């Protein structure tokens, strides 16, 4: 008999507990970071618009869940990560990163403090093994236990302006009292979940950690409760355009091991003020002093051709940066991109009138406009 982990090494992507639900819905499935995931159910643009205007339901069970428990669990994470999980009150969560000793980003994470001595680290699927190994290594010597719990959790997200009222009809806790980046044990459709007000779409929304067996009943209950409110299942394609419009970085695109949080414009996640040493502190302090070597910027394109990951940004016809993510924006109606620009180019582009900024789209310089991130901010 093979465990799922062994099966994955054999080249077969892992399945989430919701695979059959997706297949019944007619989803186009794709291998994403070693997992068979829904790319889209129908039109990804329609799914994107549903999340902006009503609500979308996502299977995020590929995300890695790593439990860190024990008397020194929070202190161990203070040492292992660039943030300060020990400063989180139980029930709160924080966006953070784990860096190599040279300051390079190994992954971006959300850390949930569930209780004084119980923290949950949520990692990107592609990086879960790296994060698990680094946390295990860095927790050595602390009274803390690091365990990969990915197979013990399914993760379902409901996102969009109607998410709150759809979920409220199915749960026992008052959602009005649950702040952004807070989590609470709850019952949803009769099943115990860890309910967090987090997301990756730029909308209000919730992420529900369930047992694998509860994923389908929770998904079906949300689908039934949300149908009249415009809830639709949404795949990874919509998730990517939603996060891009919201200016949220994606590991592998905006974030890599060759960059520190400062190049990504996310130096604020580094808590230099916390007590004690942490992995990467010396290198990151140096980077913070040195000033940026590139600036993460937002671009819109004048034509309908789409800038893609890796395309060159031009300033006055000369190389001036690189596109990290690009897509047609359903909300803005034009192609948008995030790009790393040379600081000099970013400065000039901000100051200059006229069209000197362009993206080389397969040999043609397509005029681009510098815009401030995010491209989209939800109305409040």
């Amino acid at each position, binding site marked *: 008999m093979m465990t799922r982990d062994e099966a994955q090494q054999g080249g077969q992507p892992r399945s989430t507990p919701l695979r059959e639900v997706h297949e019944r819905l007619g989803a*186009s499935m794709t291998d994403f970071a070693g997992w068979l995931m829904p790319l889209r159910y129908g*039109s*990804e*643009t329609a799914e994107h618009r549903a999340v902006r205007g009503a609500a979308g339901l996502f299977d995020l069970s590929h995300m890695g869940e790593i439990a860190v428990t024990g008397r020194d669990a929070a202190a161990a994470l203070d040492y292992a990560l660039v943030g300060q999980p020990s400063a989180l009150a139980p029930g709160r969560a924080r966006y953070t990163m784990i860096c190599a000793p040279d300051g390079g980003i190994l992954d971006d994470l959300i850390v949930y403090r569930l209780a004084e001595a119980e923290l949950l680290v949520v990692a990107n699927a592609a990086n879960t093994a790296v994060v698990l190994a680094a946390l295990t290594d860095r927790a050595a010597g602390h009274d803390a236990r690091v365990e990969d719990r990915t197979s013990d959790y399914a993760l379902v997200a409901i996102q969009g302006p109607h998410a709150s009222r759809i979920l409220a009809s199915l749960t026992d806790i008052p959602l009005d009292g649950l702040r952004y980046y807070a989590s609470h044990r709850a019952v949803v459709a009769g099943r115990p979940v860890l309910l967090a007000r987090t997301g990756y779409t730029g909308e209000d929304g919730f992420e529900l950690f369930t047992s694998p067996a509860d994923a389908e009943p929770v998904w079906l209950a949300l689908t039934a409760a949300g149908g009249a409110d415009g809830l639709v299942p949404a795949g990874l394609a919509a998730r990517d355009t939603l996060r891009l419009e919201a200016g949220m970085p994606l590991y592998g695109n905006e974030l890599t091991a060759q960059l520190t949080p400062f190049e990504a414009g996310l130096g604020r996640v580094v808590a230099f003020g916390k007590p004690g040493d942490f992995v990467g502190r010396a290198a990151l302090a140096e980077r913070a002093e040195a000033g940026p070597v590139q600036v993460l910027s937002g671009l819109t394109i004048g034509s*309908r051709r*789409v800038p*893609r990951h890796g395309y060159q940004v031009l300033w006055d016809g000369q190389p001036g940066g690189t596109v990290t993510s690009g897509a*047609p924006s359903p909300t803005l109606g034009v192609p948008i991109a995030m790009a790393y620009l040379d600081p000099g180019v970013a400065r000039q582009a901000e100051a200059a009138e006229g069209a000197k900024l362009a993206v080389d789209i*397969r040999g043609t310089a397509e005029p681009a406009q510098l815009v401030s991130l995010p491209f989209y901010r939800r109305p409040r």
Partner: protein
Amino acid sequence: MTIPADLRYTAEHEWVAVDGMTASVGITDYAQRALGDVVYVSVPAPGARVTAGEPCGEVESTKSVSDIYSPVTGEVTEVNGEVDDDPGLVNSDPYGAGWLMRIQLDEDEGEPTGLLTADEYAELTAEQED
């Protein structure tokens, strides 16, 4: 997935309908499904020459961009302006309202060659699904 029996196909997922010396060209249902939502199509302007098997345009979708290969050799006589206004027609009606261009075949070229029948194309896409 639809593969109309009366059309011919390329391995690059274009369809072609030959009527006398005129060929209508589009991309297949299989192609539009694989691409996802089409947001922009670029084809040569009327009067441009195209060569069978050579790239002559591109299809932009949310996730990717793909070349369009001309299935035949000749001169573009007409392009579908409605697709320019509403590229989603390529998704909703790839063999009908989502047609891309019409090509006047060269007199001396004779019958277009190297095209796949519906059965051959069905076999090809079945293999690519696996």
